[in-house]
């Protein structure tokens, strides 16, 4: 295929994503350096006010007072996304290894079952947990039936519920990339290690983990990035009362009507994701001497 023809074939996809996704991200970057107009749009002149607003509250007389409100929201989002990633990793690694050790036919079936929820509407999947966890929900019914409690326990609208929802949503993202790296591990390495009196822990630490690192890095990114900007789990399971970054951005673009501020937060999130991508690209490579 000639270069020109390859380029022409690539062009529709590149132009669509470039114009309607990459350029909009740059426009949002520009918006974050403007001031909000009273009609809900933005206006010149250039200012870094939106970024200052993240750290400082402006009083009526124009003096700035340091505020931790938004830092807390950002911090909470990062912590929740981090916990989600860690929990997914802890479950996904042994699961992926278990699947790798099955017979090929069973492997296909298990992979299929693990990845299927990825394609199901996140809204519906999150709503399922509202059904389960609310005061009149199944979990409370079971608890009361078992005599554990007399009154419904409030399970919804806290950080635990958000975390559960996030893990539920993003777990398949972690299993698949780890599986695809573990699948390629040369079995002779493992057998050799056991022949040399390694135990399970040592095999994991010295062989499986280093070789699976690209998969772990890819999975961590695929979980952390969307979890950081998640909107549905905090909104439906967290009750939207405690803000996270995702809901904060959404709020600033709807009822908040402060587009520059919303853009500035979005720019921060995107920068965070970009940094995570760069770390993944650097750290994700397997050590070359072990690459079988």
């Amino acid at each position: 295929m000639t270069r020109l023809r390859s380029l022409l074939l690539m062009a529709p996809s590149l132009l669509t994503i470039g114009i309607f996704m990459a350029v909009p991200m740059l426009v949002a970057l520009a918006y974050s350096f403007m001031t909000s107009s009273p009609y809900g749009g933005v206006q010149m002149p250039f200012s870094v006010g939106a970024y200052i607003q993240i750290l400082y509250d402006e009083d009526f007389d124009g003096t700035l007072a340091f505020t931790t409100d938004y830092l807390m929201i950002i911090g909470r989002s990062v912590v929740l996304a981090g916990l989600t990633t860690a929990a997914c990793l802890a479950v996904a690694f042994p699961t992926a290894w278990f699947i790798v050790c099955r017979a090929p036919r069973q492997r296909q079936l298990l992979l299929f079952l693990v990845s299927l929820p990825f394609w199901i509407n996140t809204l519906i999947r999150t709503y399922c947990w509202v059904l389960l966890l609310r005061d009149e929900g199944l979990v409370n019914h079971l608890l009361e039936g078992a005599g554990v409690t007399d009154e419904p326990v409030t399970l919804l609208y806290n950080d635990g519920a958000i975390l559960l929802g996030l893990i539920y949503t993003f777990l398949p993202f972690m299993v698949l990339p780890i599986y695809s790296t573990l699948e390629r591990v040369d079995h002779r390495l493992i057998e050799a290690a056991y022949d040399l009196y390694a135990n399970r822990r040592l095999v994991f630490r010295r062989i499986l983990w280093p070789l699976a690192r690209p998969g772990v890095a890819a999975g961590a990114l695929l979980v952390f990035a969307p979890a950081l900007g998640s909107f549905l789990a905090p909104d439906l399971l967290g009750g939207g009362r405690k803000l996270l970054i995702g809901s904060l951005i959404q709020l600033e673009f709807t009822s908040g009507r402060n587009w520059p501020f919303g853009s500035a937060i979005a720019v921060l999130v995107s920068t965070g994701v970009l940094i995570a991508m760069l770390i993944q690209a650097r750290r994700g490579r397997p050590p070359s001497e072990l690459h079988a």
Partner: protein
Amino acid sequence: MSAQPFNWRHLPGGRSLMTSLLVFLYAPLAILVIYSFNASRIVTVWGGFSTRWFGMVWDNPDIRRTAYTSITVAIMATILATAFAVAAALALERGRLPGLRGLSESLIALPLVVPEIVVAITTLVFFSAIGLKLGAGNLVIAHTVFCIPFALLPMRARLRDMGQSAENAARDLYASDWQVFRRITLPLMLPAIASGAMLSFVTSLDDFIISMMVADAGTTTLPVYVYGMMRVGVTPEVNAVSAILLGVSLLLVVMALLLTGRKPAAT
């Protein structure tokens, strides 16, 4: 001591881990479906089997209207994304893209890694900045963008797996580039194209956050409308319409994955 020889493939507790994981993933969905057939108006009290909530969903004009919007947008976005993805898959797997490969790969991956809420607000900002008001057209554009990478997944995998020997053989027999594509590559790719189309249809149909921000009053999609219902409260109608959406997604994805007979990589 057990008499069995040591087997490193055996992971202690692996089977129960796998079972609990599958229960964790599927039990909530199963419970939703069961509730949707509950005759009682009180969602969690079982009042016998009934399909009356599905009837109510069917008779709800708002659900019909928004479902129509969702399906129209999904069809349009699927056609565009699938056509673009076939071309891109050929270029990426068979073509020469000197100096552009890295850029192409990153741009294609962009919709997969950028958090949805960021995509949603940047798209909103962009459409308002250039004053684009195409109604459902705006949604079609936004959906096409994030459907392309999903449509590409099975196609690239297929092109990589099937190798180039059949194509090379045809070329040896003096087939032109077009003939090779028409007679060899396209027929061999067809299951993957169908699979990619179904995956992008599901992705478009399921999208909530981007549609919520981009859609205006006249172009509300079904998930956005259902979200509004959920905010009001847990009702049997919400369960029924959710179960329908769940069923449609499952059906399409299972079909898509069976078509290619390959593991569905989410990466």
